[in-house]
């Protein structure tokens, strides 16, 4: 129990000593910084997670043997009651090169020199898909809507939505084929062989869907723009490996945006049969396999994490049973497991950032300590006076402890208020700063976001507030203890 003079004297000291404003300001700044920076980071992380989730299927059966057949696996997977749909995927690294016969005919012909005149290299992760099945998995149609929107928000131009999924002819849809007239115009534009009459042109190119980030870097958006797709593989075991290259000509069929920067930049979607053929599994060949590297799975909606995990375990057993004897076990990954490295890196970054902000809070706590310590040193005589008129050591110490507590309460309250206001008006403030001072505190373009995502979690704000006050009380306890242990007689004699 403390005496009534403790809060009274503490309050008087706070009111009359302006240096306490420094401590209040320090706590306020630390709380504000922690709230605002973490809100932005939480917003980013939340956005990243939702983007990653949007670009990932419910479950992915992967690490399959090189000759895994989709039809065999499909029967096994779709037998599970929780599975709604599956889609085959074939992954392979490759390159894309625009066909510019007219514009680029004089360039690099017969030369081994690397073209450094633009930054967009042609490397891509080629994903062979079955468009109809992929649509059933979910996501693809939405990606094709978002793609032109992302470009339209940044650049002027006609960013048309891909018609590939609206094609009624199943064969053409499976090839992601563009209208024949578009191919005719693209051929003519590029100086490639074409029918004299557009009406006689029959489309031959399968389509390719490219991410909006790649399109942005390439700087064009022409229907059926022709590309050469190249991928390579090695054969030969004992002796020197032999490099085989496979190529196909495809036409640009549309732009997608998954929300994942890595996917939107590095991924190219093309018909799975085109990629299979390039890799030596032409469907027309006898004995060819409808080869897949992964099978995307859509589960019944509304399943919890435990049910998804259980479904994953069941599917792994089913797929392993369907694989040829002696095959290594496959992996069934949910959306977080599919992106575990990336999500771990983001979580690690957030942890590091919170540590840095904790250090900011420590600095504020040190300011409180220094202020109170200085106060104790300057108020030695007062300590003696309070003891002489009946103040107990505990109550004398409480003067300084309460001083620290008051500084923390005021600083935290101000920091919370300013932090909440800043978080609520972050984008407006960001715009205003840029409009008036050309200063963008949170550059959206850096992260390709329409606005700075900011998410202030009430639980986090409460944690920060309680933590700031607790930390201030802990550091204030040191000078308070010192004051309580002082000899009153020596204090009275202090000059």
């Amino acid at each position, binding site marked *: 129990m403390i005496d009534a003079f403790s809060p009274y004297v503490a309050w008087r000291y706070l009111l009359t000593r302006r240096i306490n404003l420094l401590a209040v300001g320090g706590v306020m700044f630390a709380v504000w910084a922690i709230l605002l920076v973490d809100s932005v980071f939480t917003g980013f992380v939340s956005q990243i997670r939702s983007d990653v989730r949007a670009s990932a299927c419910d479950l992915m059966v992967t690490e399959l043997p090189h000759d895994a057949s989709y039809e065999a696996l499909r029967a096994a997977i779709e037998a599970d009651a929780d599975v709604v749909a599956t889609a085959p995927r074939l992954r392979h690294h490759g390159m894309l090169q625009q066909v510019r016969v007219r514009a680029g005919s004089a360039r690099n012909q017969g030369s081994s020199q690397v073209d450094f005149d633009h930054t967009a290299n042609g490397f891509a992760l080629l994903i062979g898909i079955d468009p109809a099945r992929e649509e059933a998995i979910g996501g693809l149609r939405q990606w094709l809507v978002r793609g032109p929107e992302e470009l339209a928000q940044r650049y002027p131009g006609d960013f048309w939505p891909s018609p590939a999924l609206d094609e009624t002819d199943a064969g053409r849809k499976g090839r992601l084929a563009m209208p024949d007239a578009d191919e005719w115009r693209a051929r003519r534009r590029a100086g490639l062989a074409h029918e004299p009459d557009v009406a006689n042109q029959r489309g031959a190119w399968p389509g390719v869907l490219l991410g909006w980030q790649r399109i942005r870097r390439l700087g064009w958006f022409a229907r059926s723009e022709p590309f050469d797709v190249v991928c390579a593989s090695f054969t030969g075991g004992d002796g020197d490996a032999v490099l085989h290259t496979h190529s196909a000509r495809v036409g640009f069929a549309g732009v997608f945006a998954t929300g994942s920067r890595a996917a939107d930049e590095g991924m190219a979607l093309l018909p799975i049969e085109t990629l299979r053929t390039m890799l030596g599994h032409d469907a027309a060949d006898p004995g060819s396999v409808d080869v897949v590297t992964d099978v995307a799975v859509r589960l019944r909606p509304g399943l919890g994490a435990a049910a998804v995990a259980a479904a994953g375990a069941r599917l792994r057993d089913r797929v392993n049973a369907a694989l040829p004897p002696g095959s290594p076990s496959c992996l069934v990954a949910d959306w977080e497991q599919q992106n575990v490295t990336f999500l771990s890196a983001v979580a690690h970054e957030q942890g590091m950032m919170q540590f840095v902000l904790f250090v900011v809070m420590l600095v504020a706590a040190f300011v409180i300590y220094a202020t109170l310590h200085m106060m104790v040193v300057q108020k030695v005589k007062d300590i003696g006076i*309070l003891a002489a008129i009946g103040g107990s050591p505990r109550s004398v110490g409480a003067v300084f402890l309460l001083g620290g507590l008051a500084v923390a309460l005021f600083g935290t309250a101000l920091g919370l208020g300013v932090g909440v206001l800043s978080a609520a008006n972050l984008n407006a403030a960001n715009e205003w700063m840029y409009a008036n001072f050309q200063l963008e505190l949170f550059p959206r373009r850096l992260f390709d976001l329409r606005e700075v995502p900011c998410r202030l979690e009430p639980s986090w704000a409460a944690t920060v507030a309680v933590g700031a006050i607790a930390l201030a009380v802990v550091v204030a306890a040191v000078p308070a203890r010192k004051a309580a242990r002082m000899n*009153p007689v020596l204090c009275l004699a202090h000059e």
Partner: protein
Amino acid sequence: MNETALQAVAVHKRYRLGRQEIPVLRGVDLAVARGETVALLGASGAGKSTLLHVLGLLDAPSAGEIRFDGRRVDDLPVRERAALRHRHVGFVFQFYHLIPELTALQNVLLAQMMAISPLAYWRVRKQARADAEAMLERVGLQDRLRHRPTELSGGERQRVAIARALMASPQALLADEPTGNLDSHTAAGVCELLFDIQRQRGLALLLVTHDEGLARRCHRTVRMKDGVVER
């Protein structure tokens, strides 16, 4: 006047200076009765102020006993000693020892806030304020309530200190050269006030002074030399 308010019994006080032990009080016996005024005289370093601090429970004796109303009090827990110091004795110092951030009224009011919880004080705060104003009026400072110590003269500061010492209605006043820092005219006024209040309230007054004239106004004079009371 026979009831003993304060008593030191064979009190020793030693201070440690590095490895050396310095005896300041060496077996002091002293009793001050209610209504009695005692002047404590002696050269500088004789142990007068130390005896005052030990008697007022501001410092603990190295040996011996301190008694309030015949009851030993120096061995009580620190919090009880603080409460007893508040209720039983009032200190008046040579250099006033007022808290500079507080006004005259607030300095006096501070004495009302000792040994009482914040909540309990909140309930009696209006009465406490009225009492403090009355006390300042009693010492002639009714017009200086809101002045800070730096805005008061030496005599006025000492009057504030006296008012503060009396706020808890103590039974003894311990004054350590209360006029030592004042000019003779002001000192005379402060002394008059001190003795007047002492008479009115029947206080035990122990007065440390170098002023023989002031000492002669007391009922009894005790001389100290080298930490002992001269007989």
